[in-house]
Every structure is written in structure tokens, then in C-alpha cells.
């Protein structure tokens, strides 16, 4: 589903963000990407989204080499990847429902389909009652649920979450993780970049640990700090 083959990323001249990374994520997997700040987690996420280009190596997503995607086809590539961010990245002038609907409008779906789908997905993330509130009127956890609903509404084969619980308290984080887990069980490949130690330990999922741009550990049912 996602494949990194000997990928390096160097910022500027000498700041190495990723150092010869090999990683394969199969369809339907739930993978935690862990590591301290600056270990290269966000760089990997941005490379997968084709926000950045690797300095060397090849990245394949959904069977397509990213280097072969022209600029104008990048939007279509991104629509196949649901994205959740630490800071939610919701449009402030749109209600929860409109934010979710925007992701569907982007793909040119019919208004009728949007009207049916949006309430369903908001119910799924537990925000059926808050559909008409603006991001500013919602709590952090609720905003992150909207963002997950938006990421998932197009039913992308891959969902990537970059520090989804970074701004949330532990109780709220559990709810978000359960939601991601549920989305994974439907068959979506989920990749979560995080340094939320407790969460990783509780979930017992595959854990890929990065340190200074290298993969230092890859365990099928790992915890955050398992000794190698």
C-alpha cells in the first residue's frame, strides 16, 4: 500500500531528515510511526502526500510511484489519502458539516450525495448534534472528530494521522484512537505518526520507531519503548 525504498530526505545542504529508509505497509494495516520530535515522522507523512519530494529513493503509494505523478494530478493523489493533523486544519468559516462536505465537493460529487453522506459520517464520529457549529464553537476533541470525518468521507484506502492527539487530553485521545481503530477495521490502511506513549502501549499495534531519520525498530505488536 505504502512503500519506501531506500528513501532519503535532506533539507538544505546538511540537515538529514530521513536516512535510507525502507518501509512497507500492507493494505489494511494499522501502523504507529513513533519517535521524538525531529526524528523524521512528519517528513515521512509529507513525502507520502507529495508535499515534499525525496532527495533520493522511491516512494510508492497505492501502486503508483510518486515521482511519476505530475503537478496537476497531485490533488487526485491526495484524495486517495485521508489526512488528519495535529492542528485539525479545519476551514474556520465553515460549519462542521460544511467542512466535511467540502472534501466531497472537491471531488465533484453531487449535492444530493453530499446531503445524504455528511450526516451519516458525522454520526459515525459521534458529532451528529454538532453539525451546524463552527470549529471555534467546538472542543479540541470535537474538532479532531470533524477532521477525521472529513478525511474519511471519501472512503480513501489510506488514512494518515500526524500527531492526531498532540493537542488533546488523554481521555479525549482514547476516543480519537478508538475512532481510528474502527476506521481501520473497515479495511482502511491507517498510519499514525505520534509520540503519545500511552496510546501506543495500549493499542498493541505494529510500531515503527524512527530515530534521527533511520528506522530503528519495527515490531508487529509493539509498545512505544520496547527494548530492542
Amino acid at each position, binding site marked *: 500500500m505504502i512503500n519506501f525504498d531506500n528513501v532519503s530526505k535532506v533539507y538544505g545542504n546538511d540537515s538529514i531528515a530521513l536516512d535510507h529508509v525502507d518501509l512497507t505497509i500492507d493494505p489494511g494495516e494499522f501502523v504507529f510511526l513513533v519517535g521524538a520530535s525531529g526524528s523524521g515522522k512528519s517528513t515521512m507523512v509529507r513525502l507520502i*502526500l507529495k*508535499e515534499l519530494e525525496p532527495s533520493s529513493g522511491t516512494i510508492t503509494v497505492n501502486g503508483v510511484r510518486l515521482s511519476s505523478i505530475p503537478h*496537476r494530478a497531485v*490533488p*487526485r493523489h*491526495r*484524495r486517495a489519502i485521508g*489526512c488528519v*493533523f495535529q492542528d485539525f*486544519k*479545519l*476551514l*474556520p*468559516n465553515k460549519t462542521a458539516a460544511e467542512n466535511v462536505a*467540502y*472534501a466531497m*465537493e*472537491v*471531488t*465533484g460529487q453531487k*449535492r444530493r450525495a453530499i446531503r445524504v453522506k455528511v450526516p451519516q459520517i458525522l454520526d459515525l464520529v459521534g458529532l451528529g448534534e454538532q453539525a451546524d457549529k463552527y470549529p471555534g464553537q467546538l472542543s479540541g476533541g470535537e474538532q479532531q472528530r470533524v477532521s477525521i470525518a*472529513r478525511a474519511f468521507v*471519501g472512503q480513501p484506502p489510506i488514512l494518515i494521522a500526524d500527531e492526531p492527539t498532540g493537542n488533546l487530553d488523554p481521555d479525549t485521545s482514547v476516543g480519537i484512537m478508538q475512532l481510528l481503530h474502527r476506521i481501520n477495521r473497515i479495511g482502511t490502511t491507517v498510519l499514525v505518526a505520534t509520540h503519545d506513549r500511552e496510546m501506543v502501549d495500549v493499542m498493541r499495534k505494529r510500531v515503527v520507531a524512527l530515530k534521527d531519520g533511520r528506522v530503528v525498530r519495527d515490531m508487529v505488536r509493539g509498545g512505544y519503548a520496547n527494548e530492542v
Partner: protein
Amino acid sequence: MRFNLGFFLREAAKNMRLNALMSITAVTTTAVCVLILGVGLLFSAHVESLIRQVGKDVAITAFFPENAPREQVDEARAKVEGYPEVAEVTYISEAEALNRFKETFSEQPNIYEGMDPGVLPASLEIRLAEPGASDTVAERLRSDGFEGLNYPQQAINRLDQVTGYVVWGLRAATVLFLVASVLLISNAIRISIFARRKEIEVMKLVGASDSFVRTPFVLEGLVQGLVGATLAALLVVWGNAIFVEWVQNQIPFIPISSAAVNTLFVLVLLIAVGVLIGVLGSFLSVRRFLRV
């Protein structure tokens, strides 16, 4: 992908409502620029028209020798009428010349008392099609045997020169102003879009194509340009009508004319300029923030 005009229009309308202050700024800037542009346009139209009017009044007087025979007069007149630079030829006989003289000095009859009709020579009054041609016409007249010529050569040359300067100056000012307004308006639009660059980034991350993000912004620019320019253009045309009427009533010897300005043309031109600037300004400004 299907082009969803309804969605884009709703988006544009909503953005303008939410960013009302920015929209008002853009509309006002457009209106002021188009207003000044329109005033410049009308000013130069009126000046050019006035200069043309004054030029029409330039005349050359060619005197006949004393007691010139009838045939000579007719022949000369026909010849002069045949010059390509000449608009109109009037024959002033000796008697008419004296009458005019008497009229001019009607207050002091002692000046013309006892004057013989033959004292003042008969002449041709020649109106030129274009004031710049007076030298050529004078040359032709001399080669056709006229000796006494009376024409305001220096005044004509001056007028011609000044006309050229004024017209070119006005045109240069108009172009400069056009450039200035493009910069000013696109700057106003850029500021309003800069305030929303985060939104643009999010749209792109959700998978919106460049044109999908851009279209509502461009529609917004179009509407702002249209509103601002229409207001200004109507104001310009209305102000022009009032100005022309005022001059005609108050300073009747200035040959100003509403015919100097093609109202419809000015309206369409000014609105088109406003719309074009609005569309171009927003198009170019959004482009800078689309590289995500």
C-alpha cells in the same frame, strides 16, 4: 470534473459576506481608480475636441488686387476650392469688406466716413480642414499669383505644437494611471487573499485542484471589480453631463460639446477595465499561495 457554478457562486458570496471589510476595500479602491481614470479620459476627450474646434476657426485671407476682373476672381476661387487642405472658401467683395469694416467700427463713424468702396480690397476667406496645413496652402496661394496673404502663421504653429504636447501628455498620464490602478487594486486583493492563505493550504491538502480553489476567489474579484467600476463609471458619465451643461450655460464662448464624449463607449470601457483588473488581480494573487 463537472463545473459546479452554483457551488462556486455560493462560496464567493459567502466569502464576501464574511470578509466584508476586505471586499469593501477592494470595491472602493477599484471605484477610486476607475473614477480617476474616467475623469482623465473625459478631460482628454474634451481637450482634444476643443482643440479641433479652435483649429476649425483658423482662416487664411487672400486679397485680390484692386479692381480684379470678375473672371479672375471666379477662376481663382475655383482653384482654391480645389486644394485638398481647404474646407471652405468665402468670397468677400469690396463692398462687403467695407460693410464689415463699418460694422466693426460702428461706434466711431468718423473713421469710415468718406471712404470709397474700392479702398478695401476684395478677398477670399479660406477655412482649413486642418490647422497644420496653413503653410502648404499659403505656398499654393503664392504660386497661384496671390500676393497679399493674411494668416496667423505663428498662432497656428503654436496651436499645433501645444495640441500635440497636450494630447500626448494626457495619453501618457492615462497609461501611467492604468498601471498604477492595476498595482493598487491587485495589492488590495492580495492582502485579502493573504489573510486567507491558511484556508487555501487546507483546501489543497484536502485534495482540491488549483482551479477549484481559485474559482471562488476569481469570481469574487470579478464581482468586486464590476461593482466598483460600475459605480465609478456611472458617476463619471453623470458628472460629465452636468459639467458640459454648466460650461454651456456659464461660459458659452467655450465650444464644449457633449458630442466630444461617446458616453456608452466610456461606460463600457471603464467597466471592462474594472472587471479585468479584478479578475486578473485575484487570479495572480491566488496563484502565489497555491504552491502547497
